């Protein structure tokens, strides 16, 4: 019986990442390695004001004193930081002249994910101007947003155009000395996004479509800063279900979110970077620091993440609940297959009174992968009536993968209520056979079961993205579906 099960599971989980392909885009880069000179060079190439260079140098000096964290349940090969190119900008120019030249397998993947043609062109690197006027689309977005006083631009642009906001908020949630990877990012970050929503403004659109169009060119060390002023609202979406073309192995991004009184921020992300091949060779190392602060009373922050890519994921989108009555949520789906490793979760730091947090984490492990949830719920002395609810579920496909849960709970106020629930389940051969017997194929059965399992999280994603994410999960786990 075990043997039969193994065969089925091998069929289901033995698929390879179908989107890996080599890019031959011309890039502008600097020599390998990291030094003060390199940091200065990066800042100079970007034409940054003096305060940024200073910030970067402080971060670099701090980084030299730090060591890579080793507490995660991950086996990380040694990384030689002097062997990495820390600045690389793809030169503008198209890879293909039309969609006909694009790899048919990639096109099929796009279609399977249901990505609109216009975005497919961008993602595949087709010369878009020949097909459509993308500039005008972007301009329309920008105009709508500008009328409301919303600032939505690249980090580089923000540094030059809005230095006051930058100086006030950059590093205010994730200080440059926060951890090894945050310090590295602060020293060498290449670009990223900046969002400012003024007082009382509800951002009228998901800040997603625009971003996705630009997503293909985001760098290795991204930095994102989102500020939602009093009574404002924004839903922000980062990443892409579509395959990311990227040959950089090390990624260390930082995301900071500031939520003021009565404001609300929803941050959703889908990560589908190259996970390495079937035998665990290659793949992206993704070391990300994401943190938000509910600074004012009644502020609300919601993180939703779907993680299917990368060889190694080290990521804990967190929230500091400072304002009274503020609330935070963390909804996560993390899928690991083959030799992927993920150590991901959240930190909820309750400082204000009547603060509430909710954690729903769904891990799915297949192949020979390892998937860990690591979460901290901290209730400080002053956090009267704070409440947390955590639910951590693991789903296993096969008996060669690992799933681990590391919940840390630190409660210093006796009026707090903290609940934690955890389950582990396995897709059984009997469940699959039951589906088969009703006419549902094994692959569709796995899809049905997995999507049922993650429904609660996917429901939190913006509608059109949820549909794509659902398909992505199926593709990530199924055998080579035709």
């Amino acid at each position, binding site marked *: 019986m075990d043997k039969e099960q193994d065969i089925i599971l091998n069929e289901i989980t033995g698929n390879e990442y179908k989107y890996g392909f080599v890019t031959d885009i011309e890039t502008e880069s600097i020599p390998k390695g990291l030094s003060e000179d390199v940091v200065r060079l990066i800042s100079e190439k970007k034409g940054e004001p003096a305060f940024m260079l200073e910030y970067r140098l402080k971060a670099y000096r701090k980084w030299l004193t730090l060591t890579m964290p080793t507490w995660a349940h991950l086996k990380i090969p040694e990384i030689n930081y002097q062997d990495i190119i820390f600045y690389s900008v793809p030169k503008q120019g198209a890879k293909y002249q039309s969609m006909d030249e694009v790899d048919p397998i990639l096109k099929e993947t796009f279609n399977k994910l249901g990505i609109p043609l216009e975005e497919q062109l961008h993602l595949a690197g087709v010369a878009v101007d020949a097909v459509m006027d993308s500039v005008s689309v972007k301009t329309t977005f920008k105009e709508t947003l500008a009328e409301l006083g919303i600032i939505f631009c690249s980090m580089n642009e923000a540094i030059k155009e809005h230095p006051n906001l930058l100086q006030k908020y950059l590093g205010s949630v994730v200080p440059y000395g926060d951890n090894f990877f945050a310090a590295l990012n602060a020293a060498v970050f290449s670009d990223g996004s900046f969002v400012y929503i003024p007082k009382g403004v509800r951002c009228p659109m998901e800040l997603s479509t625009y971003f996705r169009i630009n997503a293909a060119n985001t760098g290795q060390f991204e930095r994102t800063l989102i500020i939602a002023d009093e009574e404002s609202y924004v839903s922000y979406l980062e990443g892409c279900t579509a395959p990311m073309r990227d040959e950089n192995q090390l990624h260390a991004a930082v995301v900071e979110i500031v939520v003021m009184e009565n404001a609300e921020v929803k941050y959703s992300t889908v990560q589908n970077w190259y996970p390495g091949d079937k035998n665990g060779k290659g793949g992206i190392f993704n070391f990300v620091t994401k943190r938000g602060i509910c600074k004012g009373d009644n502020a609300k922050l919601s993180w939703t993440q779907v993680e299917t890519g990368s060889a190694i994921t080290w990521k804990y989108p967190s929230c500091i609940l400072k304002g009274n009555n503020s609330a935070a949520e963390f909804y996560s789906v993390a899928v690991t297959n083959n030799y992927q490793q993920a150590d991901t979760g959240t930190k909820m730091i309750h400082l204000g009174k009547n603060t509430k947090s909710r954690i729903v984490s769904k891990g799915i492990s297949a192949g020979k992968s390892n998937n860990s949830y690591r979460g901290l719920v901290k209730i400080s002395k002053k956090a009267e009536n704070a409440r947390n609810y955590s639910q951590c579920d693991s789903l296993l496909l096969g008996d060669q993968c690992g799933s681990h849960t590391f919940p840390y709970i630190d409660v210093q106020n006796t009026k707090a209520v903290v609940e934690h629930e955890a389950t582990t389940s396995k897709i059984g051969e009997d469940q699959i056979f039951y589906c088969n017997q009703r006419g549902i194929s*094994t692959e569709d059965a796995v899809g049905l079961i997995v999507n049922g399992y993650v429904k609660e999280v996917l429901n939190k994603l913006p509608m059109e993205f949820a549909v794509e994410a659902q398909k992505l999960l199926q593709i990530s786990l199924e055998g080579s579906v035709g």
Partner: protein
Amino acid sequence: MLQIKNLHASINSKEILKGLSLEINEGEVHAIMGPNGSGKSTLAAVLAGREIFEVTQGEVIYYGKNLFEMKPEDRARAGIFLGFQYPIEIPGVSMVNFMRAAVNEQRKYKGLTPLSSSDFLKLMREKKELVEIDSKLTNRSVNEGFSGGEKKKNEIFQMAMLEPKLAILDETDSGLDIDALRIVANGVNKLKRKDNASIVITHYQRLLDYIVPDFVHVLYKGRIVKSAGKELAFELEEKGYDWIKKEIGEE
């Protein structure tokens, strides 16, 4: 529709079915009875295509096709339905999504287009009424947290939705109280048509008070040792299985 010829099947090299033959035609209801361990559930599992059983000899022809060349899902799409003795729980998958996938797979197999949402929900309502299943059950995840009786009723509901050509009910009566038994049996009777057939596997005669079989077969040690009309069931109830053992020259 179905011809089973000299079927041998084993699990972990242990032979369970040892030369079983049976023919089933449209419009017939066959009851298969027998003591524990005689191979009743193995027969059901082998017909449905459970791969843990190895077919070592014999053949099964279903509407002229070699059944063993069909994948389990294709057998289901072609109209073979197994009512499970122990229905499986699938947490997180709603009955609606599960049934919609099943119904549409069957339609695809027949070359029909998928049902629209409204048509599908209408069909569900009709069938729920037909088999007297509580609406609450179909709003939940597949069998999750269902009582034993609810799970069995849910099997009959699925059978009503899929309208099989050949329904194999594996001890559907076990663990049911008399009301649930009546509901299950009524469901089966209402679904009976001239062009379909059922195999009712049961340990007790009780179910056959409600479902009247055309044939009763006694399965013993992997073979059918006696076949007769419905009166055989009463005889078994009265005399027990020892009588059969004596008749075939054992003990």
